[in-house]
């Protein structure tokens, strides 16, 4: 087997897979920009993470839960009808939507809850946008009997009612956050405030590959199971690597989990940002296309902001992409050119959402529909012997009300 199948195993000297450095930096991006009160616990998480990173017993335990509870490995599906419909490259879908709780978020939640238990933490907090990370966090907390508080923007609570109810069923307390626009950014602020006040017993289970070091690296490593599996599955199905791998980017955890195992390979990597109403409007979530580097939520990364460094509200039809920044490793991969980033707007995502429902019988999450929308543009331009690997990061049951609303249907 190839060395890259081991998560966290460093590549060669010129590998793009060796970061972050000791300061938690990916080039100039990343770092640990938090108040002093949090620094000791951040260092504690870092030590705990380094301790389990190459601990066989930890990984055996995690793998057991991923296999028997989450349902891994997730399928790799050759989307034959979508391929025919688009008339170009062969399209493979990595079916993270088939995981327990319906998205890739559970991969990192399972890893982090095992870590939190090892650290002796007895209370879990998390932020959520679309509610997928909140549901996954509430799920693992129920599984291990830990109290769980989920911060969710009030706007998101309104547009993601099914997930709010799911979290409550799972025993979590959902605290709506009405500051700002009441979306993911505000939920993250409030979760950080909770953590500052409860550092002794609380673990903040961050949902994406962003935030202060070690979260971007740790969440990535837990999500690399996506790319590692897809790679092995594609080798088995086609005997070769994909030509292109595509994933949507909000905070960017599903994308970095898919991309990272391919960073040193001749695979074209494309991250799809949420364009919202369009990147030329002020209703967008495309942090790379429209933002500039700055500091928020513990890391230095691309952010949507005005000239005075005030953070701007993001907009996307997809609550999970509705965030004015993204993980620091993406900022680095953007600046060094290894990964291409493209925007897809709300309408294009809606169209791709409906297309996948009709031709493959799969209802994708609106987040994942952004990646699919780019596939619909790219696949027809490529030869039929090319292979596109797409991360179907989540299922779209949670989005049916939003889609109905946007397509003029009353449920």
């Amino acid at each position: 087997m190839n060395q890259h199948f081991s998560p966290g195993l460093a590549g060669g000297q010129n590998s793009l897979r060796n970061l972050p450095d000791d300061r938690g930096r990916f080039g100039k991006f990343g770092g640990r920009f938090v108040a002093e009160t949090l620094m000791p616990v951040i260092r504690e998480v870092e030590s705990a993470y380094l301790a389990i990173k190459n601990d066989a017993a930890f990984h055996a335990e995690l793998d057991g839960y991923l296999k028997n509870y989450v349902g891994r490995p997730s399928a790799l599906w050759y989307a034959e009808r979508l391929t025919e419909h688009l008339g170009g490259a062969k399209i493979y879908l990595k079916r993270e939507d088939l995981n327990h709780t319906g998205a890739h978020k559970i991969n990192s939640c399972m890893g982090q809850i095992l870590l939190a238990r090892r650290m002796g933490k007895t209370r879990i907090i998390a932020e959520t946008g679309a509610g997928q990370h909140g549901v996954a966090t509430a799920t693992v907390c129920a599984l291990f009997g830990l109290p769980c508080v989920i911060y969710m923007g009030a706007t998101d609570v309104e547009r993601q009612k099914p997930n709010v109810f799911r979290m409550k069923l799972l025993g979590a307390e959902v605290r709506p956050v009405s500051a700002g626009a009441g979306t993911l950014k505000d939920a993250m602020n409030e979760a950080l405030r909770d953590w500052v006040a409860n550092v002794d017993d609380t673990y903040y289970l961050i949902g994406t590959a962003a935030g202060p070091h070690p979260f971007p690296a740790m969440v990535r490593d837990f999500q690399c199971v996506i790319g590692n599996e897809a790679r092995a599955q594609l080798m088995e199905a086609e005997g070769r690597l994909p030509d292109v791998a595509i994933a949507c980017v909000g905070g960017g955890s599903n994308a970095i989990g898919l991309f990272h195992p391919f960073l040193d390979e001749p695979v074209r990597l494309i991250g799809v940002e949420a364009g919202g109403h369009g990147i030329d409007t002020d209703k967008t979530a495309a942090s790379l296309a429209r933002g500039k580097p700055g500091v928020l939520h513990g890391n230095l990364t691309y952010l949507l902001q005005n000239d005075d460094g005030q953070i701007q509200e993001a907009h996307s039809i997809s609550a999970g992409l509705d965030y004015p920044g993204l993980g620091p490793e993406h900022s680095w991969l953007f600046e060094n050119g290894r990964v291409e980033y493209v925007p897809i707007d709300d309408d294009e995502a809606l169209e791709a959402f409906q297309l996948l429902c009709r031709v493959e019988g799969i209802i994708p999450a609106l987040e994942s529909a952004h990646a699919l929308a780019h596939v619909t543009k790219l696949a027809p331009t490529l030869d039929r012997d090319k292979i596109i690997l797409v991360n179907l990061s989540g299922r779209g049951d949670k989005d049916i009300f939003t889609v109905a609303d946007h397509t003029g249907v009353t449920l």
Partner: protein
Amino acid sequence: MSRIAARFANLKKEGRGALIPFLEAFDPDLETSQAILAGMPAAGADLIEIGMPFTDPMADGPIIQLAGQRGLKAGATLKGTLTMVRRFRETDDRTPIILMGYLNPIVAYGPEVFCQDAAAAGVDGLIAVDLPPEEADLLAPHAAAQGIDIIRLVAPTTDEARLPYVLEGSSGFVYYVSIAGITGTRTASSADLSAAIPRVRKFTDLPIAIGFGIRTPEQAANATEIADAAIVASALIDTLARNLDEDGRALPGTVEIVLDQVRALAEAVRGVRVAA
């Protein structure tokens, strides 16, 4: 000698601690906050801390969050905040001014240029809440080049192994965050502070100010007995917020009501004599 060092040296001679009141720039508008700032020294402020509004103040409770939002709505920018300091310096060249805020507006301004402009405006110290010592190189060299003190935060969670590292690059004074929590929510007990401050004192000769959770004149006086200065923020902002009209605008008496509270705090702090 910097204004901060000079002020603490004088207070030591007087045998008392310092009162450091806080105001948020442009809260609820430029004129009102400029008037509060201008009135603070006569009301008994020994040093003054000015909050730089930010959209995402992660270490602040609701009271200061709302103050920042009012400030931003009134058009606060870093440039505008520096202009406030410059105007203040036209009539007061001795009271130290410390700006407190979050890093991103400074990054957007450009840390080097910001420190140059801040020094030129008459700023003496900077507190960047989300800049731990691990990341200090982003700002500290530029501040040092301009003679601006970087005031570091020490928290109850900062243990003795970490304290020397945090204090090593501190200057001006040390800001002891008295509770593990956000601003304006809880108050540390006198017993907690009496245990915590000597622990910090072991590692530094700098004056120590206590902040987060000091609301009353009694608490301020108590803090200056245990440490060297008391920082009062949320309690003053709370008073300001209660004295605005329905649309969040200042009333004719707003400035004086806030300054009355500063006077009461100062009177209590000045009533405490510390053995020199």
